[in-house]
């Protein structure tokens, strides 16, 4: 970014001479410095896993959550500025409510994704606003369409994914996800895989001594299409599987 500081980064509505919008790139940076979040889409559901960094010993571990539920079937994880994320969650809830009033059913994830992407994009167009400093991953499972997952970036660009990662260790997490045979795994199995990946990428990162809490949620056939924070017993199991896998990995190295 050689032209940083040349005045082309002050407004979201101005290109730099080499054709970039710096405000958008800064927003992506903001999303990328937060704790890693991943989404995995299996054959009968999706899971979300987050490395929620705890910045102070004095914080309650349950506060400042990163995974949210839209109506009752859509999961959303936010990566980046938490407060921007909460604004988006509120917007998504309103959007889902409007859709329900109009059509009497839950908003299809495809539609919600389109509407949120448009919102993200709109905030890259004007000098009076700044882009959202977050990436979000959306998941759901329906009898009709099966498991679905989308990721939206601050630029407003979005894709459907089998597995995706955002945040600090996004590259490392992507490499780990690529090793999985996602379409053969159930959501139940993915919980363990998700936990493993989060623990692994945290271990490998330079600041592995910072405290974090794993947040896990799932939606799928097993939950009747209801998105929920992973129940305590499954959470503990996933965590145990993750720590066991780490020890295994350590002994392999030796």
């Amino acid at each position, binding site marked *: 970014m050689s032209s940083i500081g040349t005045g082309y980064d002050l407004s979201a509505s101005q290109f730099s001479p080499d054709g970039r919008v710096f405000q958008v790139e800064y927003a992506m940076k903001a999303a990328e410095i937060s704790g890693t979040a991943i989404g995995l889409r299996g054959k009968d559901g999706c899971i979300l896993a987050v490395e929620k960094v705890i910045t102070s010993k004095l914080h309650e571990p349950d506060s400042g959550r990163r995974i949210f*539920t839209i109506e009752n079937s859509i999961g959303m994880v936010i990566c980046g500025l938490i407060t921007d994320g909460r604004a988006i969650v509120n917007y998504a809830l309103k959007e889902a*409510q409007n859709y329900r*009033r109009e059509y009497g059913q839950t908003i299809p994830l495809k539609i919600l994704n389109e509407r949120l992407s448009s919102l993200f994009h709109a905030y890259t167009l004007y000098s009076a606003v700044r882009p959202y400093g977050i990436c979000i991953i959306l998941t759901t499972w329906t009898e009709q369409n099966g498991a679905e997952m989308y990721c939206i970036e601050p630029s407003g660009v979005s894709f459907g994914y089998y597995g995706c990662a955002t945040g600090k260790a996004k590259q490392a997490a992507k490499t780990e996800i690529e090793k999985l045979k996602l379409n053969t795994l159930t959501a139940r199995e993915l919980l363990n895989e998700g936990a493993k990946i989060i623990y692994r990428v945290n271990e490998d990162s330079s600041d592995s001594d910072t405290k974090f809490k794993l947040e896990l949620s799932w939606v799928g056939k097993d939950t009747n299409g209801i998105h929920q924070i992973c129940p305590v017993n499954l959470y503990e199991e996933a965590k145990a599987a993750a720590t066991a896998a780490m020890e295994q990995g350590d002994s392999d190295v030796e």
Partner: protein
Amino acid sequence: MMSNNGVNFAPFWHNGPAPGSFYNFPQNNIKSNSAIDEYGFQRNGGPITTGTSIVGVKYDKGVIIAGDKLVSYGNLARYHNVDRVFKINENIILGMSGDYADFQFIKQYIDEIILSDFSADDRIVLKPKDLYTWLTRVLYNRRSRFNPLWLDMVVGGMQGEEPFLGHINIRGRSYTNDVISTGYGTHLALPLLREYSEKGPLNEETAQQLIQKSMEVLFYRDCRGYPKYSQANINANGVTVSDHEVKQNWDLALSIKGY
């Protein structure tokens, strides 16, 4: 007559509405909001498709609410097998009588509250008294605008450990009681229910029998009654909504003479 090419232009129907005006439902002689509005429209504010009585009984450990499965159009038995008793969430059951369309309208908002309760995921959920109070405000607000929601509702549920049973009427007036009924049930079922409830707290079994008896009486005597009814039972173990039918016995019909 010949000027009409021999066709007799008698009125199309008798005792019906004049062209351009509304059909007057037999039970529906109170017309709210019937004045012409600023655009020259006239609306009927009364009930059109209606459900009849709801019966609710509180027992020592829970609540039962029952209502038949008929939705009438005036005197016509228009929609059969329609549920009028609902599970709202794990804590609340609700029975409706009155205008079914008005109920569908308000049910949408109740469902939204339940959904946003779920989204918040903060372990705070709607309790029966909350819904009861909320409905009171909504119905009172509508009556104050001279456009009431034509509803008579019974809210039941578990307020923590305690069973709760309350009634809200069309004008937003409300009260809680051990036994509650709406519509014709106030005349036909309530005396029966009070006879038992006044002797002290009921247990689940007697409450169940009372409901069964009330639905039977209501079916025989209420012209808008129906033998099939659904009932919701809530207690510490959760909510069960089940379908039942009045066991009919028309042997006495043979003894009725002179009509």
